[in-house]
């Protein structure tokens, strides 16, 4: 099958959806002709679709999301880019109070089909304001969907579903994933929300991981295999809706659970998944649930400091060995 990068897969989804539907448009800082997006996801799209549909905005995160909300509730399908995930804090009212609540508090009158794309993740030495993983913030807001694609295939398929849907979608990307290559078919496809993907089957332990951590979990699983441990790697692909069934099914099979997430541990993605399993499958567990997550600190700058806080293969292997 054809191999393309995560970044190219995202761009393809945007291009195809813009070709399909004239109400789809993009807005964000430096996404247009002169830059193509800080991570070049939108490169070439302004040339193809024009400045009107690929709109460079001022540095006004609140207005970017608010404008997208206003356009979405009046019949457009905006895809907003926030340059770095940390900067969503600047637009939090528009995301959490407006986009997410507008349908509910108006009694179902409105649809808010809006996609907010943003990169999370540490590992490129850009310190505390450009590196955090904040997926859990958005899982805590009813009304939002939260997508967390880990491969080019998932990125394209999930972004298409996000754009075609009728709800606000918080679409998490990861900086280190942009250059990662993977199989993406030429033909049309999309991936439904709420359907996890078993990235590797196994019998001894379930590892649930998201975004870049899926790749680290797969590396860890390879090493564990050499030591006779057969790990299953489950990628939820969307956190809201969360495919609880797939996670519980895997845990029932393996009896052991390790959750790997790049956000900080307290009240994080791993906490929610652990709670789901504790509520729904505790009798099937043969060992305590282990969580591999970032410690509760901001992301530091200096490479040895930063590497220290990011979960790695060693930490995953260590956690697995504690439960098998």
């Amino acid at each position, binding site marked *: 099958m054809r191999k393309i990068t995560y970044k190219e897969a995202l761009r393809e989804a945007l291009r195809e959806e813009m070709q399909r539907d004239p*109400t789809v*448009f993009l807005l964000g800082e430096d996404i247009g002709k002169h830059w193509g997006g800080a991570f070049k996801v939108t490169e070439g799209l302004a040339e193809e679709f024009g400045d*009107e549909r690929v*709109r460079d*905005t*001022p540095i*006004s995160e*609140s*207005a970017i*999301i*608010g*404008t*997208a*909300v*206003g*356009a*979405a*509730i*009046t*019949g*457009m399908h*905006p895809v907003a880019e926030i340059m770095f995930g940390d900067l969503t804090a600047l637009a939090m*009212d*528009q995301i959490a*109070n*407006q986009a997410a609540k*507008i*349908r*509910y*508090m*108006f*009694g*179902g*009158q*409105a*649809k*808010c*089909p809006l996609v907010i794309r943003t990169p999370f993740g540490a590992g490129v030495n850009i310190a505390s304001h450009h590196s955090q993983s904040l997926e859990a913030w958005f899982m805590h807001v*009813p*009304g939002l*969907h939260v997508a967390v694609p880990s491969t080019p295939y998932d990125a394209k398929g999930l972004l298409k579903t996000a754009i075609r*849907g*009728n*709800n606000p979608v918080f679409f998490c990307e990861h900086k280190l994933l942009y250059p990662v290559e993977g199989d993406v078919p030429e033909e049309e496809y999309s991936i439904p929300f709420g359907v996890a993907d078993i990235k590797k089957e196994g019998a001894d332990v379930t590892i649930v991981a998201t975004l870049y951590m899926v790749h680290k979990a797969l590396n860890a699983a390879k090493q564990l295999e050499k030591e006779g441990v057969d790990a299953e790697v489950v990628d939820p692909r969307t956190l809201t809706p969360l495919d609880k069934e797939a996670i519980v099914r895997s845990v029932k099979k393996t009896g052991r659970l390790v959750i790997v997430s790049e956000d900080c541990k307290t009240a994080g993605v791993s906490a929610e998944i652990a709670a789901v399993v504790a509520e729904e499958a505790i009798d099937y567990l043969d060992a305590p649930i282990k969580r591999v997550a970032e410690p509760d600190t901001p992301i530091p700058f200096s490479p040895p400091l930063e590497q220290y806080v990011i979960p790695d293969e060693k930490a995953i292997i260590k956690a697995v060995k504690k439960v098998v």
Partner: protein
Amino acid sequence: MEKQLTLNLTKDKLVKMYRQMVEIRLFEEKVFDLYAQNLVPGTIHLYLGEEAVAVGICTTLNKDDYITSTHRGHGHCIAKGAELKRIMAEILGKKTGYCKGKGGSMHIADFKIGMLGATAVVGAGLPIAVGAGLSAKFKKANQVVACFFGEGASNQGTFHESINLAATWRLPVIFVCENNLYAMGTRQSRVMAIENIADRAVAYGIPGIVVDGNDVLAVYETTQKAVERARKGEGPTLIECKTYRHKGHSRVDPAKYRPKEEVEEWLAKDPIKHFKQKLLQTNTLTESEIQQIEKEVSTEIEEVVKFAKESPYPAPEEALEDVYA
């Protein structure tokens, strides 16, 4: 005919404007009464005293034009043409309300008439109005958006971000600042070194106009020019309507922070009294015609209250519906 020319509006339109102002007045007085009877859950922010703004602005709009509103939004809804019954039912938390009881007084919307909803986060409606304006531009539908907000909201970052963006993209948005002098209990002079919010328009390269917000015809005329400009693709306008709320900020507020003389001065400038005098002076309406309108509205409001009171509450489990489309 001469009188109509003086006011530059047909008699039908003037009657409709007067009637709407009276509707807002009697509706809000009734909400206040119902609140006192413990029939209104939560809180209320009444539009009493500001009727000329909503009516003056909305009279310039077409049905498919948009408005965004605030926590003090009942008047905006009525002026845009929403059904009084369904507004009142929503205020009482009933299933027949516009939002099926999920929104209440601070979150009324009627998307069918372009009323894109009231947000209770101060300043949050501005970027949403910009988005609706962008939508109109994309669709080339010749629609405009009127965005209501208070002078308090003009200190939010969204005010700056939104007007800058609308000005840069020349979007058809009328930014309507309802300056009632107080943000809750904080007088404007305590938090701003300027007198006119409209002066801020200079910073965005758009017209900023101050208008007597208690004079419905002045509001109408000013807005009409702004709407015309917006429809021609010439971009947004900031209109500051100087007005005053007759009651406190919300239901619990006796507004003791306002000097008695100030309140009296503004009560004397009551927008409805002012408009009524004008209609009589120009012989547009007779005293008995005016009384007839007031009587009709009064009867209408009684029916509205009856409908709202008799409507059922939503089933509790409906709380789980409408989270996602």
